[in-house]
């Protein structure tokens, strides 16, 4: 039973990281698929709202595997939350706890900060920027960059592609600037 208790804890990086890395050979061996998630957003556009835009005119059905993959991610998260979690609050660096306290963010019960991400705050400026504008940047930026953390940082670097290294560095630079210089102003709204 000790094993089960361990499973329910958050997994350390040296367990989770290599297992995440194994997704790369798993998908290649399953059927020559290059690991990546952000393409699913493009396939959804191509399937639902192509609007005669050349970028969305391709045979998305051939890439349907990617949609099965992301559906699996959603199911996996349900499984992990329902049966593989202890329900303990997220343990965060005390420095971050102090910082976030200034913005009235005190709830660590869920993996997302419930103080920020909830339905009512969608109608506040702060919530709108974090959830709607942030989401837009994720979709726009990943496609402009030609991939996301999985496609560039993990798959691209695994194949030693230097453009992916450039992209990964830019993800980090954009994140550092936003988290440290821009986010504080947004959280104050």
């Amino acid at each position, binding site marked *: 039973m000790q094993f089960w208790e361990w499973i329910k804890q*958050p997994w350390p990086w040296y367990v989770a*990281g290599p297992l995440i*890395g194994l*997704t790369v*050979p798993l998908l*290649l*061996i*399953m*059927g*020559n*698929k*290059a690991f990546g998630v952000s*393409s*699913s957003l493009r396939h*959804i556009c191509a399937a639902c709202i192509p*609007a005669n835009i050349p970028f969305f005119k391709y045979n998305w059905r051939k*890439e349907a595997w990617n949609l*099965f*993959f992301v559906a*699996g991610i959603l*199911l*996996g998260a*349900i499984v*992990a939350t329902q049966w*593989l979690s202890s329900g303990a609050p*997220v343990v*965060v*660096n005390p420095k971050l706890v102090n910082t976030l306290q200034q913005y009235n963010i005190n709830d660590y019960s869920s*993996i*997302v*900060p419930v103080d*920020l991400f909830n339905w009512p705050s*969608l109608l506040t400026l702060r919530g709108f920027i974090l959830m709607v504008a942030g*989401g*837009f940047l*994720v*979709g726009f*930026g*990943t496609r*402009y960059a*030609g991939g*996301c*953390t*999985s496609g*560039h940082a*993990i*798959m691209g670097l695994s*194949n030693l592609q*230097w*453009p*992916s290294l*450039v*992209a990964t560095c*830019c*993800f*980090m630079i*954009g*994140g550092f*600037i*936003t988290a440290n210089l821009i986010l504080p102003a947004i959280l104050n709204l």
Partner: protein
Amino acid sequence: METREIKQPAIIKETNTDFEVRSLDTICINESQMQHAWYHSLKYLVAGLFFGILLVKAEVISWFRIQEMFRLQSFHMYGVIGSAVVTGIISVWLIKKFKVKTIYGERIELHPKQFNKGQVYGGLLFGAGWALTGACPGPLYALIGTGATVIIITLLSAIAGTWVYGRLRNKLPH
């Protein structure tokens, strides 16, 4: 007399000449030349399930972890991504060295990625979105699964962002 049909995945010639998919955007692309019935895709659902469990258990989908990463307050995210990349590099090297084939016997092909300025501009914009939402595309799906239903809006917004990119694509510097 009836000729029995051999149920075998038919190998078809590449008819997709869409260079938009192939050249700029070599990521996340299906390299297989085979066509299968839809239920063959169910194995990717299982692979996704495995990946989704990992995302939740590693807490990499947590906004808190992303903030720690961008504030250099925790090694966790660097450890996860770093060890995933090392595992990936070793795996891809082994696949190339031993010419590993897919379960259908097809040769595994990996496409080189071409550099374009989008990786810089798009990368910076995505980095900003990552810091705000605390999620990249994979975690968006996972977060909805954890019960944070409001992230459905963030996912829809990400789809809108992808669509707007597609719309403005030829006006943007690449």
